[in-house]
């Protein structure tokens, strides 16, 4: 009897349709197109513990919940214009630490439409490679922190 070979379903790549994601950095209203090579989301918090007389942890309190987003990729202009000249101009967009970062990536609800704050940004042009942006951004997700609180 023939055996049916099956594969497994996985989430693959940085975006399901294989295209670019868009984001507005610095609340400019301009949607930058990025072909992301990697999107890395870390969930972090601080915590304190209480111990008993034997040194055993009997209580732990987590606070300052936050998302840390690392995103790296090539900039391909904006959703309005996609030419080599416009890609060059968009690459030179000024990014400041503290700028708001609003990403649209409908495949990944945890990052889509959230309001991150840029912590660090790095732009790289190197020989024989496409130029890249790397942005690290943070979003505090504790109780009482809403998108509207980010400005």
């Amino acid at each position, binding site marked *: 009897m023939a055996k049916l070979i099956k594969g497994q379903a996985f989430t693959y*790549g940085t975006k399901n349709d*294989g*295209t670019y994601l868009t984001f507005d950095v610095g609340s400019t209203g301009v949607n930058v197109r990025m*072909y992301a*090579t990697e999107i890395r989301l870390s969930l972090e918090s601080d915590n304190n513990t209480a111990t008993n007389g034997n040194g055993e942890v009997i209580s732990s309190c987590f606070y300052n919940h936050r998302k840390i987003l690392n995103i790296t990729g*090539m900039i*391909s202009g904006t959703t309005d214009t996609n*030419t*080599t*000249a416009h890609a060059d101009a968009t690459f030179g967009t000024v990014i400041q630490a503290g700028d708001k970062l609003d990403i649209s990536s409908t495949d990944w609800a945890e990052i889509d439409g959230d309001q991150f704050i840029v912590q660090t940004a790095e732009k790289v042009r190197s020989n*024989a490679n*496409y130029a890249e942006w790397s942005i690290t951004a943070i979003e505090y997700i504790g109780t009482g922190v809403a998108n509207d609180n980010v400005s």
Partner: protein
Amino acid sequence: MSYRKQTEAAFQSYLQDQVGVPVYAGTSDTIKAMPCVVVAYVGSSQNPPNTGNMDISLSVSVQSEIDEEGQPNALEVHDELLSAVEESLFWSELQSINTGATDFYIFGVAEQSGIERDVEGTILRETITLTFPAALGVTTT
């Protein structure tokens, strides 16, 4: 049109303006007149994934018939032709290909290797191989 045809067509058109001999695309059904230049698409890989941009390898060969009973000074003519082709492939010159080939855009030359020489009978062939990122349908402004 495929990457192969677009790439060969762009380089054929560009080099035709740089050298005074026939320039042929890799697949040609015409009998070559010597000396000549042949541009041939060696292969490509998509980079970055899912963008449609390709890293392309292309060979550019200068071919001449070196025969004592044939054209006099054939080797000297060959050397001059090879120099002209080599100079035309330096990025300072080659980047003008983007204004001529509207459906073909080359971002830069990532690697240039050669010149490899081989002889087949009385035919002398010297080949430069280029590797470069390129895209179709990209406009500049």
